[in-house]
């Protein structure tokens, strides 16, 4: 072990991160089992709190939380609730201590005087702290899987991935939290059957119905509410405490008073897990203390409306899966808020069975993330996760309606196309608005992006035909492309994400974050390119071992040569572009071969079946003649 410490060639270890509303956790797989990595104060749970000192210091975790009542405005908790949101979102108007920079339509920024960090940057601070804990213990950290609520929309996912990039992580995958939990349970217990995962965290609720079958984790449906969780329970209690404290108006509800009430509410909630009644002393307006008592029965009644909202999501998820509660083999509890006794009894009543909670509900998601990171980095084929799109994707139509292109619960990766036409003579431009959600009116859904297509040939109304393709990748991230069919030319698409940061902004922040600017950035690019090259060299060697017979002699020589050059570039090049060029040359040399190998894989997957028939029926059934050609241009950010 001691030898490893100074060995820069120690193999990189993949990590899994649960970036939670209340707590965040990093874990990895050691000797085949997931274990949490502790942070500097020896705990697995890092409170998701960031404190920005007036003089420029940044604290994360317990040290930051210590400032919660002293400097509430500069101590940011539950930042996850602001991811992928805008300044005027409802979330910013709820009970809380923060001031926001008004008017920013694409991202929430906290107003801290000189500093105005976005929600993405605040999250990146939490991730940096987790990354540091991992580096301290593992020396060499490889790729990371970061979990997100299943019900997160595209903007919230993009924001999470950008936070990962800002924190210097190689984000292998965004994984849905309930799927991660199921992975941890499924591998631990080796159970098969239909399961529901009820995941009530600090700020988000998810329910996922999935089928476990011999290493396949197939999500049947998912539902939830990305703004519902333990925080809302705290607010229910805090509202009553504030009344008792005499703070009933916005003037008396100063950030300090509000954060004292929220903190007391959190403690009362935790105490009620074991006690039937709690008594607290709260500071009263105008001095002195006031006695505040709370029984579990009161608390249960107050949170009942919140529970019913989760029940509605569960019933819908069951219906979407075409199942009834009695067909489930088990219900898995995830998230710290499922420690509340009333939540457990509610779940028992809802599904008619005793829920499982034998893996710590605070850690189970991070365990699943670590397992997935380990599987991905080893290219293991023991397990296959088949997930779904949580919310329908569509295009705004004339008149403000929504044309749903991909319905919710479609298996991912997914793709679909829709054709639109011009409505005016000689119209040469076309505006497209991509939205996500279940509502019939576009303005009630989340706006994901606006596109401007230009250069359409002037034709009478209704003659031009615009084909819009949607693709959702394995991270549940959307990309869109549009083609004008009469000219057959792909029009340049200008993508303006409605939320989040642009690629340029993220890039600039990465450069700014490094002390020595450009040269450090270049060095990091070189490292990244080398890691990528090593990965591809290994994969190509493996492919040569198994599928060299699919190459003729000339092709084989070309592949070998590209391989040699890439190997040389990876070990000796000093600039990233040399390595990147060598990778791309290798990519070119192996392109056709990869197609043949893919066909062989399909063939062996459907052993005994004639490949031609398979391909024909796939193509005919779906009418997907040119998905590959239409593969999306919007570069992953």
């Amino acid at each position, binding site marked *: 072990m001691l030898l490893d410490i100074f060995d820069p060639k120690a193999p990189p270890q993949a990590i899994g991160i649960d970036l939670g509303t209340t707590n965040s956790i990093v874990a990895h797989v050691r000797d085949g089992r997931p274990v949490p990595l502790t942070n500097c104060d020896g705990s697995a749970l890092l409170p998701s709190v960031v404190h920005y000192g007036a003089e420029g210091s940044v604290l994360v975790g317990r040290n930051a939380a210590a400032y919660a009542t002293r400097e509430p405005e500069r101590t940011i908790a539950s930042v996850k609730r602001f991811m992928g949101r805008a300044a005027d979102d409802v979330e910013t108007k709820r009970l809380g201590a923060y001031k926001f920079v008004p008017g920013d339509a694409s991202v929430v920024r906290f107003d801290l005087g000189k500093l105005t960090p976005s929600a993405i940057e605040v999250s990146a601070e939490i991730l940096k702290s987790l990354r540091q804990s991992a580096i301290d213990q593992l020396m060499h950290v490889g790729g990371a899987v970061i979990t997100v609520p299943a019900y997160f929309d595209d903007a919230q996912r993009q924001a999470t991935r950008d936070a990962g990039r800002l924190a210097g992580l190689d984000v292998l995958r965004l994984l849905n939290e309930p799927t991660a939990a199921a992975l941890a349970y499924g591998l631990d217990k080796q159970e098969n059957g239909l399961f529901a995962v009820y995941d009530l965290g600090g700020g988000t609720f998810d329910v996922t119905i999935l089928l476990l079958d011999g290493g396949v984790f197939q999500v049947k449906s998912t539902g939830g509410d990305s703004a519902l969780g333990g925080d809302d329970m705290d607010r229910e209690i805090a509202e009553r405490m504030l009344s008792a404290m005499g703070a009933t108006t916005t003037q008396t509800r100063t950030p300090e008073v509000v954060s004292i009430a929220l903190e007391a509410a959190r403690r009362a909630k935790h105490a009620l897990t074991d006690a039937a009644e709690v008594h607290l002393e709260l500071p009263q307006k105008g001095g002195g203390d006031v006695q505040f008592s709370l029984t579990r029965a009161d608390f249960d009644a107050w949170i009942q409306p919140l529970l019913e909202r989760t029940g509605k999501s569960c019933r819908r998820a069951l219906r979407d899966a075409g199942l009834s509660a009695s067909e489930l083999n088990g219900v898995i509890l995830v998230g710290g808020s499922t420690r509340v006794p009333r939540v457990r009894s509610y779940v028992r009543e809802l599904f008619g069975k005793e829920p499982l909670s034998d893996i710590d509900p605070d850690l189970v998601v991070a365990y699943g993330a670590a397992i997935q990171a380990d599987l991905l980095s080893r290219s293991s084929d023991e397990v296959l996760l088949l997930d779904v799109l949580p919310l329908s994707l569509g295009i705004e139509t004339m008149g403000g309606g929504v044309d749903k292109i991909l319905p919710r619960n479609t298996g991912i990766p997914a793709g679909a196309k829709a054709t639109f036409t011009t409505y005016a003579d000689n119209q040469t431009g076309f505006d497209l608005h991509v939205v996500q959600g279940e509502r019939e009116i576009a303005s009630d859904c989340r706006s994901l992006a606006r596109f401007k297509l230009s250069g359409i040939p002037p034709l009478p109304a209704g003659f031009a035909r615009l084909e819009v393709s949607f693709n959702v990748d394995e991270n549940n991230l959307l990309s869109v492309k549009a083609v004008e069919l009469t000219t057959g030319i792909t029009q340049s698409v200008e993508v303006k994400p409605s939320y989040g940061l642009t690629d340029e902004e993220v890039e600039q922040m990465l450069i700014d974050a490094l002390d020595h600017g450009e040269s450090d950035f270049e060095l990091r690019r070189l490292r990244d390119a080398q890691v990528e090259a090593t990965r591809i060299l290994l994969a190509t060697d493996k492919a040569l071992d198994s599928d060299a017979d699919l190459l003729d002699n000339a092709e084989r020589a070309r592949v070998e040569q590209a391989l040699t050059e890439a190997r040389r570039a990876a070990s000796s090049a000093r600039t990233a572009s040399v390595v990147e060029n060598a990778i791309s040359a290798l990519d070119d040399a192996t392109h056709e071969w990869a197609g043949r190998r*893919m066909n062989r894989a399909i063939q062996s*997957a459907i052993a005994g079946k004639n490949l031609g028939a398979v391909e024909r029926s796939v193509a005919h059934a779906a009418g997907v003649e040119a998905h590959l050609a239409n593969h999306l241009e919007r570069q992953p950010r």
Partner: protein
Amino acid sequence: MGVEPVFGLDLAILEQRHRDLSRALHPDRHAASGAAERRMALGRAIEVNEAYRVLKDPVRRAEALLSLRGVATGEGKEPPASPALLMAVMERREALAEARQTKNEAALTRLIAEVHAEAQRAQAALGTEFASTSSNSAEILKRIGELRYYRRFLDEAASIADDLL
């Protein structure tokens, strides 16, 4: 998907095929490969998921089978619904609107069950039509149209149920 092009498809086999193909093509299986291969696998995986989605859905499966026979499909190609069907759908719609207004969950559940049974019958009829030796495309199109009516009703009822539940 390597399944017979028939309407009376064995859904268990379809599901198994989908999983086998996903095992071969899912992007997770190609995470370590080069960019071109990853793109290719992603494209193929999307095709497989799309084909699975089409084959699982009786309306789209029926349309795909007709396309294989060279028959144009789509809502515009289907013959207009019979007056009897229209009447029945209209009556049900009124009942649905009433259940919505009075928030009558029991009535809503009953309506959904009734129409669901109708849809099952229409689907069975569609299966019989496909299987028959003298199977007639116009008749099939008519049945697809019927099934579509029921589906739409059920979708609407489901979203009303969402609000009520």
